[in-house]
């Protein structure tokens, strides 16, 4: 088979550089602030990232709760920034609550909401979000509906799927939780339809097909699927539980195509073809700005890693007074602290830290298949702090199975045609 492929050989001539100005700007203009209101949890899920199978940080235990005084310092800081009237740059902001199980500290959440309602600048919309195991949902439903919370409930599908979700006494949580959810669905149908979402962890005893079937039948919803995290651990127990989502979806596509379309899943060939087009042609554009500055994914900074600029997405404040760029980066390297006396953050130090790591990874980015489409956050690499480390998702260009992709294109000419028809203006 003859193949004529145009290799996208953009050469990055400068080292990746983040400036403290960008970081400060991101911190001050964060549109989401996440408050870890408590470290405590009433569940003991086997795969929990704060559980026995994961490396624990000295910066997090399981007992602290955020004091109101410190929460108020954070709120005052951001409410004053959000309130700058002239030339407002954003319409809406999010305050998220995280844990442990955040509803265990309902008093703090209630205080935050009341305080924000009284003090938020005119014309600014603030949305509240919560990630919960659902055990206390019914108890506080009236409060949550009053403030129009968007709630993400962790539920892994049917009873078998929830086998790893137990409370601290080792009792299965599926029955009481689904009973609460059924109640809420019946008595608060609009709220349930618009404001309750689900997250499900896919594992060895919980295939994707079962999860979709359960939620479709019981709640007419489609959950966000999560894989068991491989970061910050190296335990066989985790490997034994781990299950890959993409493989499952491919299996559904092959074996149960009618279910595939019923759940409105994407043709699994599509991401392969899109990856190929993104990586090996320069015809793919992510956003309008790419037509002006093709080599400039991030502010002309030269950074190709998908690791977000610190605080670009959100700022995460922990119960013990640490500041992180998000709740998924682990607790080892806080970027700042806060206490009764205020927020302390050194943007130059953060700049140096990030640039050191970007530079370390960048020498591999040049030759990596994903260089134009990186989805890897360096915080998910177990060894990102070590001096000599290779990105765990590094895929040298030589390793690319060109034949496979080209065969896929050949077999799926219609899909390619459909993609072009969908995206291309003749």
């Amino acid at each position, binding site marked *: 088979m003859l193949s004529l492929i145009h290799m996208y050989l953009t050469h990055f001539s400068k080292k990746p550089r983040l400036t403290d100005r960008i970081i400060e700007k991101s911190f001050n203009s964060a549109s989401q602030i996440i408050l870890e209101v408590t470290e405590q949890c009433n569940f003991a899920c086997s795969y929990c990232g704060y559980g026995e199978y994961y490396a624990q940080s000295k910066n997090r235990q399981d007992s602290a709760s955020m004091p109101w005084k410190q929460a108020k310092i954070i709120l005052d800081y951001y409410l004053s920034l959000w309130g700058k009237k002239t030339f407002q*740059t954003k319409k809406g902001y999010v305050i998220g609550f995280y844990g442990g199980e955040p509803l265990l500290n309902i008093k703090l959440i209630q205080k935050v909401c009341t305080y924000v309602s009284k003090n938020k600048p005119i014309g600014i919309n603030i949305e509240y979000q919560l990630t919960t195991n659902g055990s206390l949902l019914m108890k506080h439903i009236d409060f949550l509906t009053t403030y129009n919370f968007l709630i993400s409930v962790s539920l892994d599908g049917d009873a078998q799927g929830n086998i790893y979700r137990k409370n601290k006494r080792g009792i299965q949580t599926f029955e009481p939780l689904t009973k609460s959810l059924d109640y809420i669905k019946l008595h608060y149908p609009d709220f349930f339809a618009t404001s309750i979402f689900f997250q499900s962890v896919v594992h060895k005893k919980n295939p994707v097909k079962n999860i979709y079937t359960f939620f479709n039948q019981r709640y007419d919803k489609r959950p966000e699927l999560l894989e068991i995290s491989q970061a910050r651990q190296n335990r066989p127990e985790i490997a034994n539980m781990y299950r890959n989502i993409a493989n499952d979806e491919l299996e559904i596509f092959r074996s149960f195509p009618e279910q595939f379309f019923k759940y409105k899943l994407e043709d699994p060939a599509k991401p392969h073809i899109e990856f190929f087009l993104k990586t090996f042609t320069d015809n793919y*554009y992510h956003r309008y700005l790419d037509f002006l500055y093709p080599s400039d994914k991030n502010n002309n900074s030269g950074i190709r890693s998908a690791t977000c600029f610190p605080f670009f997405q959100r700022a995460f404040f922990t119960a013990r007074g640490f500041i992180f760029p998000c709740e998924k980066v682990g607790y080892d390297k806080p970027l700042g602290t806060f206490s009764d006396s205020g927020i302390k953050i050194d943007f130059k130090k953060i700049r140096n830290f990030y640039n050191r790591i970007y530079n370390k990874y960048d020498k591999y980015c040049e030759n990596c298949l994903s260089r134009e489409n990186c989805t890897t956050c360096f915080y998910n690499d177990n060894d990102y702090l070590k001096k000599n480390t290779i990105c765990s998702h590094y895929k040298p260009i030589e390793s690319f199975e060109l034949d496979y992709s080209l065969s896929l294109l050949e077999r799926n000419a219609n899909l390619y045609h459909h993609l072009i028809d969908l995206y291309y203006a003749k």
Partner: protein
Amino acid sequence: MQNKVQYWLCIEPHVFIWQVNKSVLFYNSINFQKFFFPQQQETDTIIQKLLDPANFYSTLIPNNFQTNSSLAELVEQITKNKIGSIHTLTSEKKPIIIPPFYIFPRKLERLQKRKIEFYDIRILDYIQDITIQLSGECGCNCTACSYYYKQITHCSKSKSSFSLNDIKNLVPTLQLLNIRKINIVGGDLFSIPFMSEVIMLFQSLQTLVIYNLFYKHITSKILNLIFNNSSNTLVKILIDIDEASEEEIILLANTVRSFRKKIIWVLSVASAHSLYLSERLIQQLKIKEYEIYPIYKGDNLNFFNKYYFLNESDLFNLEVSKREIHANQVINKNFFGKVIIKSDGNIYDNENLSALGTIQDNLETLIYELINKKKSWLLIRDNPTCNQCIYKYLCPPPSNVELLLNRETICKQPFTFNP
């Protein structure tokens, strides 16, 4: 048993094939070679197959193609201009070449068709270039005052001015944006009493700041003020060659030379004579950094017809890369990312169009509206005249001159290119 030999006509992935009515244009976006091929019965099917994305820019041709004069001619043109090549294969499989169709899933029209709202969490990044008119007060009486600013970044007159407080309130917002440069224009900028404080404020932005100064307003004292207090700065000197005297320009050149700083001369020309003069002055004064712009002043359309609007041979000789062609199909590279803030507080995407809003409005909202209403940033050659033209996407995007003159095209006297 031996497999039969098959002849595949394959087109290079950087080649564009455009068809309008009875003519097809093949264009190589790397070496810029191009040729027209008229529609003919013998070759039409082949060309249609090449145009179909599902065929991946390759198609079988008869083994005896050389006996067919039209097909042989097509193949010869394709190979001679490095548009493509013939490959002989004995297997059943076909070549795969990815045509240069851009893929942009988040294009506004696509989203609208699927009833999906356009959203970009970093939409404010789109703002790349801001022009701020600090004051419209000016004692000069330039005859073309109402024309310059509609065509290039230039001062203009108005009755309003920002106060120091207004500017202090503006700066924090500018700090939140990812702008690559800020253009400062007046009026007479240095009639503003607090200009030195303004310079310090803009210096704190750590972005390139360009002071666009009308030549009559420039003195050594002003240049000292700018360059002593700021590092990330350029000065552009605005001169209308038709109005300024040679003596004035030479005196100014001497003043400026002593600074050895980054100064760019922006020369407006409205006639062939001033075009000649500007070239002479550049040589005479050894000006290294300059920009020359033709300026329409209401009575010099002939100058534009002769020197600005494109004729057919100009179009045929255009050399445009694949990326630029993609850009021409989606955005207006002349306008995209530019925002103008006037001294009365109005915000524009283009001075030839109505205001987007004011500085009291939410900036994100204004940008979303700009995108959703496909204003200047997304103004492409999608009008009835250009849609009939085979050079449509080779042509530069609509410009300020076309907006000012209310023209659909940049070619001489709109006509359909359909050779």
